[in-house]
């Protein structure tokens, strides 16, 4: 089995077996990131394809800094590719019924949230309206600041912040409903 270091060296030389090993090791994880951003499997697969091709072709720009650095680099490429594709769709407005957005964020019990399986959580995040979903993913899951989000999405920081509040309110409401349905 190839180590991460072997994979990096092989990919730098354009060796197909190293590229395939990287794909086998990380593609499902990267696919989950793409699904979170794109909201559906088909678009996510296109993003993953573009991101991996981009990564393989620009491997000489990557410097290995120990275990995990490769995954972090690919994570950034998938996020950037997804955000880039979403920005191309920005002229399409989010169709959000304003009445469906809760005015306040529900108070959730962390213990109860922890019992919800990962796929359900992921599908709830993926079901958020595109703009809210992007900001929520970038800020709450991938750790971007509002400043970075504003710069990457071409919006101002206030918009980023308000979209995050609405995203959290919608997600908390959905989780609350899910907990109520499954505990009653």
């Amino acid at each position, binding site marked *: 089995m190839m180590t991460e270091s072997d994979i990096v060296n092989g990919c730098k030389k*354009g*060796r*197909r077996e190293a*590229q*395939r090993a990287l*794909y086998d090791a990380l*593609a*499902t*994880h990267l*696919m*989950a990131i*793409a*699904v*979170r951003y794109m909201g559906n*499997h088909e678009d*996510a*697969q296109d993003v*993953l*394809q*573009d991101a*991996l*091709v*981009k990564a*393989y*072709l620009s491997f000489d720009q990557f410097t290995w800094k120990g275990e995990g650095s490769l995954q972090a680099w690919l994570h*950034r490429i998938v996020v950037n590719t997804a955000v880039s594709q979403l920005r191309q769709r920005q002229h399409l407005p989010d169709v959000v019924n304003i009445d469906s957005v809760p005015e306040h964020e529900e108070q*959730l*019990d*962390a213990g109860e*949230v*922890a019992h*919800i399986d*990962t*796929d359900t*959580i*992921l599908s709830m*995040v993926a079901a958020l309206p595109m703009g809210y979903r992007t900001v929520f*993913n970038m*800020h*709450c*899951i*991938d*750790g*971007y*600041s509002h400043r*970075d989000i504003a710069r990457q999405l071409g919006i101002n920081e206030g918009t980023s912040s308000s979209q995050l509040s609405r995203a*959290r309110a919608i*997600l*908390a409401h959905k*989780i609350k409903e899910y907990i109520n349905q499954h505990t009653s």
Partner: protein
Amino acid sequence: MSSPSQHNNPEWIDIVAHKAQQAGQPIDEQLWQRIEQKLPATRRRRPWLWWSAAAATAAAIIALAITTRPARIDDTSSEVIAQATQPTTASSILQEAYTQSPHHTLAIHTQSPLPSQKKVKVGVETTTPVDGTHATTPVAPIHEREQDRDTINTTSSQQQNHSPSASHKSQLADNNTQISIHRTQFKENDSHFNISLYGSGNLLAQNGTQAVQRPILMAMGNGRFIEAQAVTHYHYNHHIPLNVGIMVSKSLPHNLTAGIGVNYARYSSEVSADLERFDQTVQFIGIPVALQWRFWNYRRLSAYVGAEAMAERCVAVDRGDEQVDVPKRIQWSVHGMAGLQLDITQHLGLFVEPKVSHYATEFTLPTARNEHPLTFNLKMGVNISF
């Protein structure tokens, strides 16, 4: 990018983030194949290339070994032109003989005085200059000329086979050594046909670009579509092309040589455009026809100039995952060259040939040879004459 927990999120969001970060999603099986198609082809190992090179080298060594065998000297037709009885005078005899016939082939035959009767033959050959400027006698044309050979025989007292006179026999009986120089003659093989095996490549790798227009449908704000042209700019990084071939030629009067052959050419390029990157390989088989004029000879070196015309047919195009029809049009080209040949033996020569080429027929795919009207190549090979 910072850790999500640094944003002071409520605890439930950290749990959601943690679950999302650990998640995995299934992937369609065809995804890897689609990715692979977008990647440049891995350089395949081609063992046949190495085997071909090894076979060619072996053939060259065998040819060299056969053609460099020392020529058999016909003692019966020899003529004594100098002799001596002391071994120490061998060098002076050789020098004397060389002075008499500086452009003739000299050979020393030594027959050992040891009881084992072991015979040792040592041949030293010099080639008579073709232009005859240093010859003491006029030199006939190369096809008709008979080349002289002088032989120095050192014979022991027990070996009297080649002693030309009784006085020598008495000297040999005293266990002295007799040295005699014989002039023997052999006829040089006529060189009517030549076979040349060669390889050549461009002196410089080249780059180029190509803009390709493709029709697309663009959505208008009113819900209608209009047809537009999308332009993709391809950048070509051409590798040094490979040309190999074989040519059979015949010597003609006036130092002319006419030949015909088969040529294989392979042009590979790395093509990139936006996110696309792939390899392009175009292969041609051609029939060259050449005429050369040998204008200068000096010892084993000769120089020539020539012209060549070639008709080629594209036999294969490999261009990433794109389906490309192989162009069927015959490709015409003309070439001019100047060459230098070094004769290793009577039958084997090495040549190097700078060459300028013009490919007259337009070819739809950019390759190293059609980026500029003229390309400069260097051709090298082996010439076998018989």
